[in-house]
């Protein structure tokens, strides 16, 4: 499956329709069955779908948990309320509204657009703050957002009427309109997930460091997805306001947050279909448990009244899901995956001839000059100078603690030197990590950082997308899969592959974007003789295909001696030797570094 905007749009449409139809059937059926009361519940359910799917757009793709999206629903709802309520009502309710808002009276559609715009603006600001954060810090900030917005709504009495109900909102919401809004949101969320942006964001979710090293602009993408999801949540809030006609800040606070989180977790935060499933199951479950909690009489048995019973249900759902299936019931599965099984085209058989070399037309060399880097006062890299010419295969060896990893991190832009320079050609190495790949320098990692939940093909796709932005030749994922012997496992999740395949996939991924240089960090760790010999061939193929210079950091000396044209030996942060494999093998300083000083005397 290739990710492109047109395919994404297609997927979005198909998914939206496939999900909207059952929801429409269920809700319309219920409304028809139960009359006006039923329609209210139906629209409320649709609102939950809009909210949960919107939250999932951000949370599922970026991997950052948010407790604060309900705040955007609140902003949307209140903006809508203030803009579209009849001034007659407003003059009694919020007579002192600033900016003359008590006299403003927009039509419902105009009001909705303006309200969404307001939500978008707030989201742009908050997203800017949030985009570089991940994990607990980000979640705390979203929680703070929820509380601050709630506080503002409760206390800015002149604008919002405070904690008391804001009534008089035109209660014009109907089920068809709600369903229409929902379908649009489903489309956006579904399309985003399958789009190039979505794929890159998912890569950063699986491994932020690797994604950055492969050229993904994680913070930018988080920002975009955050704003999109916030606007979706705002839309949900607007629909809710138009349904209820009367709102209070409490409607958009912890209770709604609990419910939406439970729904998201149940179905699976990564899947749009999962979000919908979560809403349906919990809505039904909630109603059932509330009915039980009201103390119904069944035949001769009267159940006791259990207020809050439905909340207990919610809490237990969350706990059980986190313990048993943190990825949710549907995990990554989308409803249109069913269709794909019919339509799947067989993979084109690739010819046996090796791919033509796509060596860069403007080769550059990599130079490090007197690079120094400290950690807690100790110089891990202490004045290292080296160079790699286009197409060269260079080895970097040294005993434990020599600074090889630090040096590699410096050369790949993961760390910045305290002093000294690193240049690609005549330009310095970019300071922002995601620009390094675009400059044609790629790397692999010692403990294999693949995007484990993405398929093998998708792993490579991420980098080919990035490669398009550079001016070098772009290799197709299919070609790279063939060149590195991964066609058979192309559709399997990268985390499930055998070890050798994982190593090769990491190299293939780097090959897509490493037009000038590929840095390999201990590529044969844990392999036996046969496997490392195979990988040596893979690296030679990479060298031929890309014409890229290759730097290999390794402990396996026989591997390095058999592969590299030149070798640098590092010890205590300094280069102590440099030369061909034969020169290095017999250099007494190298011997001393590896097996200790006594040996030098013994080996005359």
């Amino acid at each position, binding site marked *: 499956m290739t990710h492109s905007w047109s395919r994404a749009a297609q997927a979005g449409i198909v998914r939206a329709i496939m999900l909207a139809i059952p929801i429409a059937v269920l809700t319309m059926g219920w409304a028809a069955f139960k009359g006006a009361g039923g329609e209210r519940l139906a629209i409320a359910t649709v609102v939950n779908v809009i909210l949960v799917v919107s939250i999932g757009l951000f949370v599922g793709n970026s991997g950052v*948990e948010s407790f604060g999206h309900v705040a955007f629903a609140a902003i949307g709802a209140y903006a809508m309320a203030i803009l579209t309520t009849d001034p007659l009502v407003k003059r009694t309710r919020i007579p002192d509204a600033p900016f003359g808002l008590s006299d403003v009276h927009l039509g419902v559609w105009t009001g909705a657009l303006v309200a969404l715009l307001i939500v978008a603006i707030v989201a742009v600001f908050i997203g800017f*703050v949030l985009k570089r*954060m*991940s*994990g*607990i*810090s980000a*979640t*705390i*900030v979203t*929680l*703070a*957002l929820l*509380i*601050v917005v*709630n*506080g*503002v709504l*409760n*206390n800015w*009495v002149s604008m919002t009427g405070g904690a008391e109900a804001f009534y008089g909102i035109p209660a014009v919401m109907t089920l068809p309109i709600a369903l229409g809004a929902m379908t649009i949101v489903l489309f956006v969320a579904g399309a985003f997930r399958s789009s190039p942006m979505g794929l890159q964001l998912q890569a950063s979710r699986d491994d932020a460091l690797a994604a950055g090293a492969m050229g993904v602009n994680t913070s930018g993408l988080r920002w975009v997805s955050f704003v999109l999801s916030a606007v979706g949540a705002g839309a949900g809030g607007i629909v809710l306001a138009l349904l209820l006609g009367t709102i209070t800040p409490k409607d958009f606070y*912890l209770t709604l947050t*609990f419910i939406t*989180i*439970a729904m998201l*977790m149940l179905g699976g935060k990564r899947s749009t279909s999962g979000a919908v499933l979560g809403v349906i199951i919990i809505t039904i479950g909630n109603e059932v448990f509330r009915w039980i*909690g009201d103390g119904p009489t069944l035949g001769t048995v009267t159940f006791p009244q*259990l*207020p*809050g*019973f*439905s*909340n*207990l*249900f*919610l*809490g*237990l*759902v*969350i*706990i059980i*899901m*986190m*313990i048993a299936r*943190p990825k949710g019931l549907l995990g990554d599965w989308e409803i249109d995956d069913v269709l794909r099984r019919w339509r799947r085209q067989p993979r084109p058989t690739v010819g046996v001839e090796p791919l033509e070399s796509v060596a860069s037309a403007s080769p550059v060399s990599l130079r490090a000059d007197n690079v120094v880097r400290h950690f807690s006062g100790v110089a891990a890299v202490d004045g290292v100078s080296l160079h790699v010419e286009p197409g060269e295969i260079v080895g970097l060896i040294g005993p434990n603690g020599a600074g090889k990893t630090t040096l590699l991190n410096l050369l790949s832009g993961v760390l910045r030197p305290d002093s000294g320079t690193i240049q690609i050609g005549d330009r310095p190495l970019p300071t922002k990590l995601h620009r390094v790949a675009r400059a044609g320098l790629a790397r692999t990692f010692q403990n294999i950082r693949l995007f484990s939940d993405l398929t093998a093909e998708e792993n490579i796709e991420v980098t080919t997308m990035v490669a398009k932005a550079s001016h070098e030749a772009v290799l197709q994922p299919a070609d790279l899969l063939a060149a590195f012997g991964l066609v058979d496992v192309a559709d399997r999740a990268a985390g499930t592959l055998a070890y050798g395949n994982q190593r090769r996939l990491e190299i293939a991924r780097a090959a897509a974007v490493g037009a000038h240089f590929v840095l390999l960090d201990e590529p044969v760790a844990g392999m036996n003789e046969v496997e490392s010999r195979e990988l040596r061939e893979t690296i030679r193929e990479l060298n031929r295909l890309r014409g890229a210079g290759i730097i290999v950091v390794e402990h396996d000396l026989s591997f390095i001696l058999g592969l590299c044209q030149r070798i640098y030996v590092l010890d205590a942060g300094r280069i102590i030797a440099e030369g061909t494999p034969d020169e290095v093998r017999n250099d007494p300083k190298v011997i001393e570094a590896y097996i200790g000083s006594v040996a030098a005397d013994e080996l005359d």
Partner: protein
Amino acid sequence: MSEFLQQLVNGLSLGSTYALLALGLAIVFSIFGLVNFAYGELITIAAYMMYACSGLGLPWIAQAVIGIIAAVVASMLMDVIAFRPVRHADGTTMLITSFGVAIAVQAIVTIVVSARSRTVPQPEWSSESLSFLGLTLPSYQLFTVIITAVALIGLVLILQRTTFGLAMRASAENFQTARLLGVRSNRMVSSAFALSGLLAGIGAVLILARTGGALTPMMGVAPVLKAFVAIVIGGIGSLGGAVVGGLALGVAEIALRAYLPGEISGLTDGILFALVVVVVLLRPQGIMGLKERLRT
């Protein structure tokens, strides 16, 4: 001047409560890596247990003790039932699990007792005022400061002078190395949860004294959020930071409420939370925290 001093004492007393609560939250975090959202429910459980005891006619001191014991037990149960199974999951899965626990416990309390507000009768002396150094202070404030000080001193003594405390400090610094020295990991985790429950229980007693015994099923939510803010400001992972953060928060809250003009003073909570965002941005490790502690 005396007005200022009274506000200061008020701030310190509120801050002491926050410090105690923050410490309870921080202990579990530093050993287990979990930010326990359900911590507030321990307060609720302790308070409702005191209510139940008052219904049985037990003297106040017995109520307090039983309430605290209930919090300890509840905390250890939470560990075993809900958190051990997700022990190896990442931080956000654990955070959400604690969220689920919080909701479930609130629901159980609502079912067992009812959603209506109730009151736990407070002892006579807690609503009296004392004359102290020329100031007229509500006695519960002094009570809070004294109890917190005693609790903190006790905690410090345990941590510094006992082998158990030694093991706990080692576990908080580096769990793996502590195990290599023979510290039993399961026991440490249970102890951390128990200690956390103890502090929550004491916190509940102090909160009830301050609010005149008001009880609602959601009463634990606001304190846990404040404790959250306190540890972020003071430094996630630092026990000393939790105390400093709590005190700072209490004083700031009282200052804002007292000295901000009328309409805005209601935004105090909002301002305090906005402060969290500022701290997270500018100094993510808080006042006293260490950068490595943040489990991102």
